[in-house]
């Protein structure tokens, strides 16, 4: 018999290391032709931290995304980036990039102020133009600004870093400020369970994530979609088996450790939720790990809902489901 079930899972996630300093840094230079070098320590493992760095630099400097060249994670040239972990690079390296850009903008603002006769605090840098917030007709282009910089022998260079505002936790009771900010998420997920075979089909998942300000929409969606695949697989297909004698992993291959294929994943509806805050760069928060988490309890709950079971352990494999269903039929029958 096929039975459907729905589950909900929520989570919050402190961004950055727990109650510990974990700074990251960035270098930036705006070149004479308005192209930009940004160098960060953050390792990009495909999640998009370098794309994030380019986006934050462009937004801060008032240039286009295409103007920015990012180099990363080469200790010869890049400053400390810390680990690409704890969903921290958007928040921490993002702030470092913003800070580095703001330092570089010191000379840019001074020069633009002289050229336009506008006080520095009234200047707006946006989409390759610099103008007065009081009178937008008073404006100059970025190339003109860089030409003026060149004539005056000024360079637009900056280094910046950021360390989250946390405290060490009290060893007695863990009181303190473990994280400066938190990401939130809710996932509602539907499964269909075959009570004869124990097979679980993942149908649909809605996963809503508060990321503060999304740096890029597809970047966030990609994390949510990938995280949901990994989270559902956590419950229904993935498990390391250990040999009881040698304590070796018995299934170290992809034929024996089953991750989801394009046929197995649910249809995911990612929802990018924004919230207001000052801590992250332009209010951005991390999503790498939050993307995974809520689908795990949602899948457990959906299976329990489908067959009236009370699983509190993972994984839940077909044999577990068949057994639970039989036991339920027997106690009811």
């Amino acid at each position, binding site marked *: 018999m096929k039975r459907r079930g729905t589950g909900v899972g929520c989570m919050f996630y402190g961004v950055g290391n727990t109650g510990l300093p974990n700074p990251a840094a960035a270098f930036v230079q705006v070149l004479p032709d308005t192209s930009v070098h940004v160098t960060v320590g953050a390792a990009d493992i495909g999640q*998009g931290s370098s794309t994030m760095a380019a986006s934050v630099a462009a937004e801060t400097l008032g240039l286009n*995304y295409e103007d920015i060249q990012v180099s990363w994670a080469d200790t010869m040239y890049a400053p400390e980036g810390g680990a690409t972990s704890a969903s921290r690079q958007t928040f921490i390296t993002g702030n470092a990039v913003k800070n580095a850009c703001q330092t570089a903008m010191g000379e840019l603002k001074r020069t633009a102020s002289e050229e336009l006769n506008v006080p520095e605090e009234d200047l707006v840098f946006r989409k390759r133009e610099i103008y007065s917030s009081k009178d937008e007709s008073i404006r100059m282009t970025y190339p003109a600004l860089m030409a003026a910089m060149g004539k005056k022998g000024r360079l637009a260079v900056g280094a910046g870093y950021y360390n989250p505002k946390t405290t060490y936790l009290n060893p007695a009771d*863990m009181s303190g400020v473990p994280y400066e900010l938190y990401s939130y998420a809710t996932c509602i997920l539907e499964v269909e369970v075959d009570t004869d075979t124990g097979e679980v089909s993942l149908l649909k998942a809605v996963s809503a994530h508060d990321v503060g300000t999304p740096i890029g929409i597809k970047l966030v969606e990609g994390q949510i979609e990938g995280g949901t695949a990994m989270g559902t697989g956590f419950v229904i297909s993935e498990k390391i088996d250990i040999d009881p004698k040698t304590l070796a992993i018995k299934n170290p291959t992809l034929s024996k450790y089953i991750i989801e294929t394009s046929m197995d994943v649910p249809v995911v*509806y990612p929802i990018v939720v924004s919230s207001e805050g000052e801590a992250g760069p332009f209010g951005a928060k991390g999503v790498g790990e939050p993307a995974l988490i809520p689908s795990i309890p*949602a899948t457990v709950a959906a299976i329990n809902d489908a067959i009236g079971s009370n699983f*509190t*352990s993972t994984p839940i494999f077909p044999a577990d489901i068949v057994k639970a269903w039989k036991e339920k039929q027997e106690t009811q029958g």
Partner: protein
Amino acid sequence: MKDYAVLAQDHVKVDALEKVLGTAKFAADYKMPNMLYGGVFRSTVPHAYIKKLNMDKARALPGVACVLDHTAIPGKNRFGIIFKDEPCLVDDKVRRYGDAIAVVAAETPELVHEALDLIEVEYEELEAVSTFERAMEEDSPKVHGDTNVNVTKHLEYGNVDEAWEKCDVIVENTYTTHILSHMFIEPDAGIAYLDEQGVMNVIVSTQNAHYDRNEVAAMLGVPQNRVRVKQAVTGGGFGGKLDISVQLHCALLALYTKRPVKMVRSRTESTMVSSKRHPMTMKCKTGATKDGKLVAVDCYMTCDAGAYSSYAPAVIGRAPVHIVGPYECPNVRCHAVFAYTNNPMCGAFRGFGVPQAAVCHEGQMTALAKALHMDPLEIRMINAHRVGSVIPTGQELTESVGFLDTLTQARDKAAEVMPEALERLQETE
């Protein structure tokens, strides 16, 4: 949301072009003139002293450039992101299946395998500690030092013991989560070489080049500025590439051979020795009023962290802070104990203990909703963090708390794309 010029829209990722063209250089794609291949001789027992190690036959094989054990290490033979408890090459005893005992550099990958097969080892086997329970017994063999306790944490907030009498409903459950593998699609790989200035260069698939640099420098006994670690294009990580993989072994072999040395792990070796997700047991008692307001949470959390610490101290620090989930609760206790065993090493894996905690807190919220005949979404909304909420460390949340919006927007989207499923979810008995 503000009107951003660049953010909150879509741009082609900075690394997308080389990846679709196939020109992106992953660690295994590097080739250098005069390059050697490296490999690791690993333990096939979980817990043992090494009585004898014979590398003579391997060394004598033509085409083998060098075979090294721990005596070759010029600097420190202990590394680890938080506790330095893992050896580059075993010096005192084997603590898990797959511990690195010796390294080989040879002209071809085939010769590396031949040489590894020629290394002979004799063990004096010790009882292997394979469960948390056994680890905690007084008479159990100790994996490191004189205790198997890796880390303990205790979170205490409000007054849990006095809170139970204020509860109209209490649910108690034990949650267990299992050990999992990252299964990043690119197995670990790297290449090391000394450059013209005598700087040790390591190009590697990694999530933390600066940490790697510090460990390579410590192992070589050179200043940190005499080591350069460059991240190769990295084929996924999910936390599994936060530990040292081939960095130290490649660098050691490159130091001795004065030639570039490349190591590419097979899928099997990569999965065998990279870190795993911490399996946890969480015994949890949660109480609420009849209106569904959380009153108290008490959780006892245990974990078999495996043979080395890796990121366990970070996981045990994070999980208790998140044990209630995104909900207000005035009385919370979480006591956590992580133990060393001779099982595969657990470490960082996407979520750092929060996925495990979420299985527990969401299981408890669903159980409470059921006990109170409440809509599971409603009970979550009643307790949801808002600006001004205080978490169990005493921290007040002052901004950027969008939890309620995720609940309502997920509900509204579900009403649109899966209305029957949502209706079933919100049905109360």
